[in-house]
Structures are given as structure tokens and as C-alpha cells.
């Protein structure tokens, strides 16, 4: 996995606009505000290659807080933004049902990962062989791949998407790590 180092994340101009952190009462303005937040969240997670998000803790940190202008998003506003990301397929609530406290951000949608994984397995001649999820994400075979180091929850969802298309079969193990997968050509 390409390390999350290098150039710092470039925040958009609106990140310095104080009202960006207050949920706008006007519905049209809010839709625009939410759209900009969704873009920012996905871009930020892509930059840092991060996928898990705990809402209550997150609002104290960038991108949901801006210390320079001393503004932070409220948890309930962030919850609405994540709801929208879920609608778009860019996030999924995780943790206990209906609490909406933690989520996974897919900076690349699972269906897209699915295509990438399948292509890689086909090119490497790894079809019809059982691989563990650990091997897939952390093995030397994929050290140069974008999905190297991808978290297991996202990986699992991507493979489930592939299974849904009949292009892979998942085998349940004792833990997520030794869960297996077989790709079909």
C-alpha cells in the first residue's frame, strides 16, 4: 500500500469558512453543504487511506474540526452526512444496530474494489486457489497493489460483492483474518 505520507492533505477553501461547521437551516444550502462535506470526507479518507470512523471522537479532529478557526461539526450533523454517504454507497454503518456511532468510509466503493481484486487474481493466475483475506491484503503477492493493507471489513464487503456476481466464493474461518476466498475466472 502506498504510504499515507508525502504531501499534506489539501483542504478546500470552504474548510476555512466558519458556517461550514454549522448545519444550514435552508434546505437548498444544506444540500450543497452536505455535498461538499461528502466530497471532503471521501477525499480525506482516500488521502490517509483510512476507513473506520468513530463519530464522537472524529468531531474533535480534522476534517470535522478546524482549530485555526475554532469550529467543529456537531455529532448529529456528522450523522446526517454519513447517512448521505451511506445512500451514495460510500459508507456503511458498523457496530451495534441503530446506534449510528461508527461507520466505514469507502473511499473506493466495494464494487470497484471487487473489480480490481478480480482482475488482479485473474492476471496472477490465482483463480480456483483458496487465499486467506490476510494473504490477500498483507501478502507479498499484492505488495504493489492499491488494496495492499486494506482493512478487512472493506475487503470482506468487496469480496461479498464479487460473490454476489458469482465470481468468487468466501469460506468462513475462525476469524476475519483466516477467512478464505476462491476467485473464479
Amino acid at each position, binding site marked *: 500500500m502506498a504510504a499515507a505520507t508525502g504531501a499534506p492533505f489539501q483542504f478546500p*477553501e470552504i474548510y*476555512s*469558512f*466558519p*458556517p*461550514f*461547521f*454549522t448545519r*444550514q*437551516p*435552508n434546505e*437548498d*444550502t444544506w*444540500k*450543497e*453543504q452536505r455535498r*461538499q462535506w461528502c466530497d471532503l470526507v471521501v477525499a480525506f479518507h482516500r488521502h490517509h487511506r483510512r476507513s473506520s470512523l468513530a463519530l464522537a471522537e472524529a468531531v474533535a479532529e480534522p476534517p470535522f474540526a478546524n482549530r485555526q478557526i*475554532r*469550529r*467543529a461539526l456537531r455529532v448529529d450533523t456528522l450523522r446526517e452526512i454519513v447517512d448521505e454517504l451511506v445512500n451514495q454507497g460510500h459508507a456503511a454503518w458498523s457496530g451495534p444496530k441503530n446506534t449510528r456511532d461508527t461507520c466505514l468510509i469507502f473511499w473506493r466503493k466495494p464494487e470497484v474494489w471487487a473489480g480490481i481484486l478480480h482482475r488482479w487474481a485473474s492476471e496472477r493466475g490465482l483463480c480456483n486457489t483458496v487465499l486467506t483475506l490476510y494473504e490477500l491484503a498483507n501478502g507479498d503477492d499484492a505488495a504493489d497493489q492499491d488494496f495492499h493493507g486494506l482493512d478487512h471489513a472493506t475487503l470482506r464487503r468487496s469480496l461479498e460483492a464479487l460473490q454476489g456476481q458469482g465470481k468468487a466464493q468466501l469460506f468462513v474461518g475462525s476469524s476475519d483474518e483466516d477467512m478464505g476466498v476462491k476467485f473464479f475466472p
Partner: protein
Amino acid sequence: MRKAVGIGGLRRQEAERQALSRKGDELARREVAKLQEQVALMKTKLEEFVRDHQRDIRNNPAIRMQVQRMCQLIGVDPLASRKGYMAELLGVGDFYCELGVQIIDICVATRSANGGLIALDDLLRRLALRRIRGSEPVVADDVKRAIGQLAPLGGGYRIVDFGGRKMVQTVAREMNPDTSTVLALAQQTCRFSAADVRLALGWDDGRIQACIDDMLRSSIVWVDAPAAAAPAEYWVPAFFSQLGASLA
């Protein structure tokens, strides 16, 4: 061709078909490359021609029209060199038309964020990002002229002045005079509170609230309420973008 029968015949037919299609592709590729070369040559020649025959083109509308048509046909952009010889010779009407389209494009795209009010400077900055690299910069006067040309379309585009700050307004409705007054008040700081308005203009609370509600409704201001206890402030994104541009 002799009628081919049997498996062997079918295979041979297939092989011939493939060979023909390969040959066809190759010919088409060569043809395209040749055409591209010719168009590039044509462009250079056309530019040379225009340079060499400036006076004739300027004085003879028929020739001017023909050159302009040729430019369009082969994709030489007279707009890209607006203040250069091409545009001067060919007339700049199309330039403002195209600029007008770009202005509408930007205004519509930013409308939900700024309520259809955009600082002239900000608009110029966004236009500059869209222009073809190396083309003459667009100046405020060009925008004014292009907006003038948009008038027949009835989009309500106009340039308004708030305390010396030029803004392009792109909503068809007439702006409430109270809104204009408050915007003029806020143009230095980008923001205002109800107390600021009361202090500066001496309005009563009802009038202030009605004005703020109206501005919120049309997305001209965004509310900033970091803490429930502190009074809210209202920010004008159109002014803020300009601030951002001058800092950048």
C-alpha cells in the same frame, strides 16, 4: 472467388476475412494520421495568411467572413488570441458570446452555495481557470460587456455595487433594498450579526430578523452558530470567496 466448401473452405474464408479487416484498419489509421498532418499544416498556413494579408482582411468583409469560417472549420480559435491580430481582424462578437456562456455556467454551478451573488473578482478568477492556456486574460470590462449581451435572454444577470465592491447578481428577482444595505455593511468583514445591524442602521428587531430570514432563504448568507449560547453570525459566501482568492 471460388465457392469454398467444407471445413477447410470455411477456415480459409475466415482467415481471408481477418486479413482483410487487418489491412482495412491499417489503411484507416494511415489515413487519419495523414489528415491530422494536413490539418496542422493548414492551421499554420492560415495563420501565416492572416498575418500577411491583414489589410485585405480588415478592409474586405467578404474575405474576413471566409477566413473566419475557415478558422472555425479547422479549429483555430480566434477567441484564444482575442487581443491579437486574429480577433482584431475577425471581430470579437463570438468572444463575448462564448464568455457569456462561461459566465452563465459558473453562476449556475455556484448558485446553490452563494445564492446567485458572486464577487466580480471571484468570477474572473474562475473564468481564468477555464480559458485556454496562453489566451489573453479576461478583465472586468469584458465581463460587463458579456453580461450586457446576455440581457436579451432575460436571466437577470447584472453587476451591482455594494459599498464599492462589485458583484455579479444572477437571480432574476429584484434584490430587496434592505438586503443591499446589509450587504454593503458586511462587505468589509464578510460577516455580520443582528447586533451589528442594529448598531449600524438602527433598525428594530423585526425588520432585522425579516431581512436575515430572507437572506438565509435565498442562500445569500450562511449562518455560523458554533455555540448555542453565543449569538449567531451570518457570513456572505460571495464575499468570502473573494477573501480566499486574495489570500491565495
